[in-house]
């Protein structure tokens, strides 16, 4: 391990991408993730890569489509309204099975909303966003160190499955500084890309990257192939962290920044004799269903805490499958719940 550095989350994402071999970044500035583009603009020329500030988010995602087609590691980043603009390109890239990494440092909506932290794009990220039956792997880091590790992982997962991977953070994670230790060498999974459009050299048939399949039989087969791939990812790529769940009175579930607040709540509750467990999904898709099944009958209830009006709670309910009541507490508009607020919710639920 190298030296400990104090770095901003956004900068760490960019540094991690470069270390993972990302040579092409296309983006358009928007708060609270613009430091990613700043960092890329400075560093990409130093590593022989390409930085383009595109004319729009739509242009940027289509540049990603092009670079990914050529088989290189590529990334774009934005924040909520910008990610909405990218949805058409995301669906096309998913249809064409292109590996690429998309970063969403979420801000509060709907519409232009505000610039403060939120988790209101959960549905957009895990349930679709663009059209068609596709899935993105969605990684939800909760520390600056994890931003580094999961960004590297995102590129590996993408290449391994010819798959789009999203890193979903929020303004707190993007803007905060924490200690980060980069490894001496990244664990880069090198995958051959015989499908890439790199030129035939007059030695092979043309490769085609496309999402259009006019024949319904062919398109159904293509969709079945995608669904098989998604099933494989569900089997292999679930990441989750559980803490204190074995004999918990209540299990709280939260991801990203919110999970950090819950960590403080666990300590406060302990002093009052309440045992609070935490299940922190690290992959929002594939969702850690089995982890919830494992603990479904342990606590009196579950509580999902989110910076939105109640999105992940739906997946929690599906996973707990009626075995225990699942409650929700959330704040919106960039408001962040205090530890005390969450503890009050816990007490209220346990007294029911």
């Amino acid at each position, binding site marked *: 391990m190298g030296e400990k550095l*104090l770095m901003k989350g956004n900068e760490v994402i960019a540094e991690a991408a470069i270390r993972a071999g990302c040579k092409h970044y296309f983006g358009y500035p928007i708060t609270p993730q613009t430091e990613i583009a700043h960092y890329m603009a400075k560093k990409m020329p130093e590593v022989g890569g390409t930085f383009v500030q595109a004319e729009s988010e739509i242009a940027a995602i289509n540049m990603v489509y092009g670079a990914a087609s050529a088989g290189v590691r590529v990334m774009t980043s934005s924040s909520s309204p910008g990610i909405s603009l990218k949805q058409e390109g995301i669906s096309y890239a998913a249809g064409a099975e292109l590996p690429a990494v998309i970063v969403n440092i979420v801000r509060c909506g709907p519409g232009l909303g505000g*610039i403060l932290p939120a988790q209101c794009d959960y549905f957009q990220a895990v349930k679709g966003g663009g059209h068609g039956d596709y899935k993105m792997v969605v990684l939800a880091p909760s520390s600056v160190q994890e931003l580094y590790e999961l960004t590297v992982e995102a590129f590996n997962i993408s290449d391994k499955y010819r798959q789009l991977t999203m890193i979903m953070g929020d*303004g707190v994670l993007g803007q*905060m500084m*924490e200690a980060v230790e980069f490894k001496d060498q990244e664990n880069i999974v090198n995958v051959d890309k015989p499908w890439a459009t790199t030129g035939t050299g007059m030695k092979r048939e043309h490769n085609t990257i496309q999402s259009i399949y006019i024949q319904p039989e062919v398109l159904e087969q293509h969709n079945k192939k995608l669904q098989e791939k998604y099933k494989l990812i569900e089997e292999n790529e679930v990441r989750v962290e559980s803490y204190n769940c074995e004999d918990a009175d209540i299990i709280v579930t939260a991801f990203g*920044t919110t999970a950090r*607040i819950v*960590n403080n709540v666990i300590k406060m509750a302990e002093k009052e004799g309440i045992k609070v467990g935490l299940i922190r999904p690290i992959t929002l898709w594939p969702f850690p269903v089995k982890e919830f099944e494992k603990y479904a009958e342990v606590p009196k209830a579950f509580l999902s805490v989110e910076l939105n009006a109640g999105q992940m709670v739906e997946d929690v309910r599906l996973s707990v499958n009626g075995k225990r009541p699942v409650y929700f507490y959330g704040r919106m508009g*960039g408001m962040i719940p205090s530890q005390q607020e969450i503890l009050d919710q816990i007490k209220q639920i346990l007294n029911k």
Partner: protein
Amino acid sequence: MKNQDIIIAGFGGQGILSAGRILAYAGMLENKNVSWLPSYGPEMRGGTANCSVIISDEAVGSPIINIATSLIVMNGPSLDKFEKMVSSGGVIIIDSSLVEKVPERKDVDIYRIPATKTALDMGNATFATIVLLGKLIAATNIVSKESFEEALKKTLPAKKHYMIPDEIKALEYGMNY
């Protein structure tokens, strides 16, 4: 010192965010767990700036501070906004060159230092934050003076290293005030 939650607040341009970064860096050099979180919301557009620094023996949970153990303020509005967030027995350090108002709290240690005036006398207004951090270090032992000096070297770009001797004088002024 188990856990210090520090808010540093004032106007943009006073070096508030950099001050917090040096402090967090010093904590990291002592192998403590640290976080630094700047305000980047709408209040920034009003010209105010603040940051939250946590230095802890344990893993840092939320980087957002609801109750601060220490507060450094460099303008009046920040005192109004954050005074009530300081825990009982905590510390409030005020740049008395810029804030005339005296806090109402009786259950905290209050230090008033003419930091900006001192810094201007030394020829560089940005030393004001260092004066105030000097007082914070002396009042709370949050990090050692040596770690702070090392953090200054690590966080300042090489072309500004000539300023370090004066910064240390500013630090000592604050520590001994």
